[in-house]
């Protein structure tokens, strides 16, 4: 028995260990992926096995579709807000928490705690408590102390205050997680670098931050930026929960995933068009990710 379990049958044992996982991945990721590409070339309303081949029609109609291109604009606006704010806040939190001598674990927990909260619950607090557009909403109450008028945060598009609501939800939920990534990066910086800087007369504070800490955090910063952009592309939960009402989803501020959800699984069940949109989205994400990685020189050995 032990000889059978030993080195003679390595290939067999490799597949005993890896096989179930690999099989599931093929069935639930590779097959859907291939099916998605297949469906995108067919007119597939409400059917999973279409026979009406339409070539690239789904793609061209998707690219000419204002709703789809608007969703890309929504994504662009969203990431222009969320990527820099999350980056700066989580880096600032990490720098401050890292230098604490006491209560470091406490502050780390407090900032990380929202990561345990779901977007659904967070969106509920934001929508029904903080940014409720009526007098008992916390934001309006606080602003009222300073004599400001009441604002209908989520139901006004001019000015588009809903962006403030959408961005702050994600900021609250995510900043702690990225703070942990930055903290991990900070822990890896060798103390001798700081000692050398002190010997050279660098003043603690801005000089040390700019010339030692930030360059040493380069790899972490690149990874955080990539993750922020990819995650922004996949935003769904907070948009869906903040903006949709009993009467439906407003046409403004539909990010790509929300738009695809309604196209493919909404009343029309247009799976062909939805698949074409999904493939386009995947291509855009791939291009942006690879472009970013190139731009940052990710994978260059000398870093």
């Amino acid at each position, binding site marked *: 028995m032990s000889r059978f379990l030993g080195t003679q049958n390595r290939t067999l044992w*490799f597949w005993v260990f890896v096989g179930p996982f690999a099989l599931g991945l093929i069935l639930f990721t590779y097959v859907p992926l291939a099916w998605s590409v297949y469906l995108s070339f067919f007119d597939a309303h409400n059917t999973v096995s279409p026979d009406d081949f339409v070539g690239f029609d789904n793609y061209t109609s998707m690219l000419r579709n204002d709703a789809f291109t608007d969703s890309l604009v929504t994504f662009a606006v969203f990431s222009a807000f969320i990527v820099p704010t999350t980056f700066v806040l989580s880096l600032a939190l990490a720098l401050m928490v890292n230098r604490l001598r006491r209560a470091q674990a406490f502050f780390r927990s407090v900032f990380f705690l929202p990561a345990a909260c779901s977007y659904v619950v967070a969106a509920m607090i934001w929508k029904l408590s903080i940014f409720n557009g009526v007098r008992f909403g916390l934001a309006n109450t606080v602003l009222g102390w300073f004599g400001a008028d009441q604002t209908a945060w989520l139901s006004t598009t001019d000015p588009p205050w809903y962006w403030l609501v959408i961005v702050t939800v994600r900021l609250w939920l995510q900043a702690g997680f990225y703070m942990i990534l930055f903290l991990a990066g900070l822990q890896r910086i060798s103390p001798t670098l700081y000692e050398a800087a002190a010997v050279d007369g660098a003043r603690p504070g801005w000089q040390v931050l700019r010339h030692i800490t930030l360059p040493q955090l380069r790899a972490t910063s690149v990874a955080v930026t990539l993750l922020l952009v990819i995650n922004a592309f996949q935003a769904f939960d907070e948009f*869906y929960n903040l903006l949709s009402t009993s009467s439906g989803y407003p046409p403004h501020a539909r990010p790509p995933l929300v738009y695809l959800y309604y196209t493919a699984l909404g009343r029309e069940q247009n799976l062909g068009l939805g698949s074409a949109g999904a493939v386009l989205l995947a291509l855009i994400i791939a291009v942006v990710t690879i472009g970013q990685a190139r731009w940052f020189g990710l994978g260059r050995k000398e870093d």
Partner: protein
Amino acid sequence: MTAPVKGRVPAPRDRSTDDALVRAGRALRVVLLIALALLFLIPFYLLVRNGLASEDDITSPDWTFFPSTLHWSNISELFDDPTVPMARALLNSSLIAVTTTIGTLVLASLAGYGLARIPYRYADHVFYAILGTMMVPAAVTFVPSFVLVSSLGWVSTLRGLIVPTLFSAFACFIFRQYFLGFPRELEDAARVDGLGYWRTYWRVVVPNSRPVFAAVGTIVFIGAWNSFLWPLVIGQDREAWTVQVALATFTTSQVIRLHVLFVAAAVSIVPLLVVFLFFQRWIVAGVERSGIDD
């Protein structure tokens, strides 16, 4: 020269002459941190406050920090309300989160061990094929995954909610990295004792790897409990609603009363906060170990 502090970056020594300035800066930092911490805690406070307040207290135009009285009865009202399938949703979410966590740990750890430790010609190819799925955005697969699950007849079943989510490339990746660094001496000792791969894995490797299992398990559990898009797509019948889908449905339908909604949301995060606070240091370790920024 002071001895270097083990494992932690020391704050730069206060060698500058303007000590007062440095001290003022430090005080400012602490004040800022406390202010930010309070800001981060406010949403949790609002959740609990509104969950335990009466509906009048929530909608009162004169907002107060503390509700006039605490209504613990909101909790029983939530579970007695026949229009709110909250008990069922909590049960579904618990079943899904526990099963997904156990299933992911078993499948991903076995695969990670195989990839790291069993010599096989095409091991690297298999590994890259697995890693590649991490780059596939959820947007691309949720439509065809729905199609697949519905053609299996799994819509609105727990199977449909659980099985497709069991194959986490991320978890497999973490396990592989961890097992690559696992001390070989322990395995060699087991080998000398005549144990094969299978028994070496279960009797030697797993018992000595508890922290990484705790880290991955916690991350998977939280992800499964909080996931929304997939349960929304698959859990179409009320009977198959998860906590998140139930809450979202109530929020947009606005039939339900506010205090019930808030107590439901508060109840929904209790299990998670317990898991989270208990396992937090393992999550941190898991993030640091994932090599995400290397």
